């Protein structure tokens, strides 16, 4: 019996070494780590949790695997051996052990996970903790749409931070280093307004002007915040809707249709109004930050994290859509970058024209230069450098500027 235990331990150690070597070593052979670079404070705790979970999993796997391999080696039936194994049908004490021990292990994992989660979400859902250390100090409104992203910068009370001439929303995510940023995420097509108008027209025509408690439709959150339609679009949508629904009504009543009405019905057979104007779900994810949240059509969701360093020329990080959203899903990516706080304040005030050069690709090179006060001049120089050499790293850029 003693010898068996010794051998079992040997098997365990060997299995653990082999599986750990495979799990940790092969990615190194493949030329990379398991995890993307780390950009957020929150991601640090998540990474630690991940390594802990991986190590626990490896140990448990090695225990089971070593036992099974041991049995395969030592308890094989000789060819022609028709006898049965030993009649062991259970062991109550052992069974209690492997109920209690795993319960304790998963309880510990759950508690640790919960601590990490709480620590990563200070003030995110708990209004009372909104002023605590670690709570958000900057808000970014994120809009996902098929297929792209928009970002808008606000303080926590919802007041716009961007300057007068600045574009309403930026297609790239630029963040200041050190602030905890709260992302208010939404999926909006920007055309919800038209959908509502069309539906409104339909209801009014169907109720024939009678009072109807359902006739009035409240504008949704997307229409209030991300409406990209113009007054002309709205007028056109109302006109088309009126024509289509009148034509349908005439057809249903058996009236004679005009040529125009017939053509309209044929060209818009599946005219659903609102259905074509709302977006689908996306997911807002920066892998380097380790945090993601779905962008739901018309419902706001939240996530927050704190960028801990600025991004340099090789850090081509992106905002990625993680939720299947249709044919353009894999291309739904936006560049993102982190700059110093004072540079961020300067960037917010840039006009639409000045933003042309302030792309993330340029800002990453821009980050190579510290201690400058004249951001405008620096950006101009950087833009010149990247124009000549789009692949320029920090050293090339510094040499070029010198």
């Amino acid at each position: 019996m003693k010898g068996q235990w010794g051998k079992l331990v040997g098997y365990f150690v060997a299995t653990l070494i082999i599986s750990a070597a495979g799990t940790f070593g092969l990615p190194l052979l493949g030329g990379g780590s398991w995890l993307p670079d780390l950009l957020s404070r929150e991601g640090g705790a998540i990474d630690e949790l991940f390594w802990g979970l991986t190590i626990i999993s490896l140990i448990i796997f090695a225990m089971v695997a070593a036992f099974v391999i041991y049995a395969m080696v030592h308890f094989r039936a000789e060819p022609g051996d028709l006898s049965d194994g030993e009649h062991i049908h259970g062991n109550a004490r052992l069974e209690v052990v492997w109920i209690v021990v795993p319960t304790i292990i998963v309880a510990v994992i759950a508690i640790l996970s919960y601590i990490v989660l709480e620590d990563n979400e200070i003030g995110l859902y708990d209004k009372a903790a909104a002023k605590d250390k670690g709570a958000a100090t900057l808000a970014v409104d994120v809009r996902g749409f098929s297929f792209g992203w928009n970002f808008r910068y606000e303080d926590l009370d919802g007041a716009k931070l961007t300057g007068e001439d600045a574009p309403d929303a930026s297609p790239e995510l630029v963040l200041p280093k050190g602030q905890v940023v709260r992302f208010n995420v939404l999926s909006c097509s920007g055309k919800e307004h038209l959908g509502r108008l069309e539906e409104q027209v339909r209801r009014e025509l169907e109720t024939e002007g009678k009072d109807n408690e359902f006739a009035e439709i409240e504008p949704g959150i997307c229409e209030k915040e991300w409406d990209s339609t113009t007054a002309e679009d709205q007028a056109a949508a109302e006109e088309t809707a009126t024509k289509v629904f009148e034509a349908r009504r005439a057809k249903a009543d058996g009236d004679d249709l005009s040529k125009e009405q017939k053509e309209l019905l044929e060209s818009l057979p599946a005219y659903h109004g609102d259905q074509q104007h709302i977006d689908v779900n996306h997911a807002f994810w920066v892998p380097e930050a380790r945090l993601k949240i779905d962008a739901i059509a018309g419902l706001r969701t939240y996530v927050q994290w704190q960028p801990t360093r600025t991004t340099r020329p090789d850090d081509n990080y992106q905002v990625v859509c993680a939720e299947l959203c249709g044919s353009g899903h894999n291309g739904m990516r936006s560049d993102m970058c982190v700059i110093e706080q004072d540079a961020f304040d300067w960037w917010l005030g840039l006009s639409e024209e000045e933003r042309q050069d302030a792309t993330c690709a340029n800002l990453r090179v821009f980050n190579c230069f510290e201690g400058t006060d004249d951001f405008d001049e620096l950006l101009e120089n950087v833009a010149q450098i990247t124009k000549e050499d789009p692949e320029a790293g920090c050293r090339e850029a510094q040499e070029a500027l010198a």
Partner: protein
Amino acid sequence: MTSTQQTTHEAPTAGDGSLNVRPMQGLIGMALGFILAGIVVTVFRLWTGGIEWNGSASDWKALLGLGGGKLMYVSIFGALLGLLVVINGVAGFRRHGFLSALAQLPVGYAIGAAVTMLIRMAFGLTPYSEGPVATFGVIAGYYFFVRGLGGWANWWWYMKGAATPEHEDHSNHGARRGWRDYLIFNTDHKVIGLQYLVSVFFFMLIGGALAESVRAELANPELQYFADGSAYNQAMSLHGVIMLFLFIIPVFSGLANYVVPIMLGAPDMAYPRLNALSFWTFIFGGAIFLASIPLGTFEAGWTNYATLSSTNGPSEIGVGQLMWLLGIQFIGASSIMTAINFVVTIVAMRAPGMTMWRMPLFVWGSLTQSLLIVFGTPFVAGSQFMVLFDLVMGTRFFQSAFGGDPIAYQHIFWFYSHPAVYIMILPGFGLISDVLTTHARKPIFGYRALAISTLGIGFLGFTVWAHHMFTSGMAEWLRLPMMLLTMLIAVPTGIKVLGWSATLWKAKIHMTVPMMWTLGFLFTFTCGGLTGVMLASVPFDIHVQDTYFVVAHFHYVLFGGSVLTVFAGVYHWFPKMTGRMYDEKLGRLHFWLMFIGMNVTFFPMHWLGTLGMPRRIADYQELAANYPSVHGWNIVITLGALIQGVSYAVFLYNMVTSWRRGPIAPANPWRSRTLEWLVSSPPPLFNFHDTPKVVGAPYDYGVPGSVHALLKGDPGYDEALPGAIPETTTAH
């Protein structure tokens, strides 16, 4: 024998073979169809105020179904009714069978479509609209498909009070006409089991081919083989749907159909006809999925999340989305019918002495799985009906702008689809216990703990659905209880893995092919289970949700778990089902290729996921530019997938050749104890000539002289369980 049965009028019997052409009836039927349809529509339109009656010639023409313009549809409908009568009159189609079913299917579709168009017309709508017309066409098509098979006949005759010859005379269900037996509405559970197995391995071939196409695309960044993201999404969605709904769930219906009644000592399932209906309903649903391929199939993934699946309107998304929504309803209905059948069979059809604690663990797995299906499947049906209504009828269940809730879809969907994961693996857990004890010649370690943990997993399975939604923006407090409960599932699952491992202690392991699959399963399933605990941890899940880490996890659970148990079961029971032995060498080759192939394929996916590769993408060039190892691992994964493809070819070749020419198998090649091995290979028509008596535990290996069950003729049969089997009455 009473005389009532002789006096009832004779019902038509299936396959009497007499020519019965009745063209005159067909013509009269066509004429009547015209007139009837015309009257119905005219009266309806008068009643709803759609038209006014002037008594003019055109009004009368319309009433007779001869009107022009829109009333052409009425004529078409009448003609279809007449056509049906003609088809019925032709003997070949009157005979119940697969050909008749195929012939009646389009007629049914046309009738359903025509009726829908008539109704739409009566309400003054454009007669043709893809959504409603296809929906009701498919439903009517299903009715006629089963009608052609003869699936409704017995119920219909019974309701009329006519004789039900099949019901009185069971010889029909085992007609023994060779392969043709498998193309009729056969009620023998063994035939149905094989019907399921053969068709699901066919479906797996298609699902696997789709997986290979996906891997070919992903071997290199940028799009190469697929025209656009849409085409890729279709292949990916179809792969998932086929593997889950047309392979993994029904493959256990097939294995359990064949084995469970025999294990219980029963002559058949409790409801043999319902059993056959389940199978053909499943085939119909599967055919809908496959038929959607040329039409441009669904592309919202197997999860079919609203509003991606529910907003564009069918004509924009393509008819494929509609076909998913219809197909899943038939497959779900089939699944529920099968599950009810198993619950009743297992509760009510056990042989004398077969107490719950003497049931083989495969039966326990099947019972728990069936309970999960009965409770859970209505939820997925409900969620897909809502999507269907949103698409076809313009409801707004999932549109927030009009009071709907897109997250509600995910809650309803996962309330079924998480238990569905256990539906896909609990029978496999049971199966592996049976195979393990037999080939290790040891009692299972902790029989009751394994049985109770099966029920425990089944129960907990209903309490953890929202762990799929940690990043969905659902109520944030829900994450904590869901994390705790999900991790708790590791405990009963651990009981199982440790119980199986402990069974090997001091065993006499025979390294047969089924045993190799079983041992392989212990490694890969443990790996999949452990990543499951990792994913339950909310902060880590937020990072890897919707990435290849999740893909790796569920392939380790479903492939490394379920599929490996399926192959263990198929090799274990192959001699029993076919009466022949499989080729041992090819079986080993299949195992090694597939085991290595699956690990090469799925293990690197963990790294890709943590590194930031989202799932369901056709192209990853930006990611590969940042992290070059992504490209390398994708090449390795594609090679692994190719190895798996080769192994599947080996498997199919082995099955086909061994079934035809393999050496004759003895009744009990594994010297197993459970009931299915005590009868001949393949078993006789009603499994047992006389009801067996169960006198002991199923897995008491190593106890000299102990047996699980006795058949008539065995020493001690007559004395065992006195009074358990009532004396046969000779009243009739």
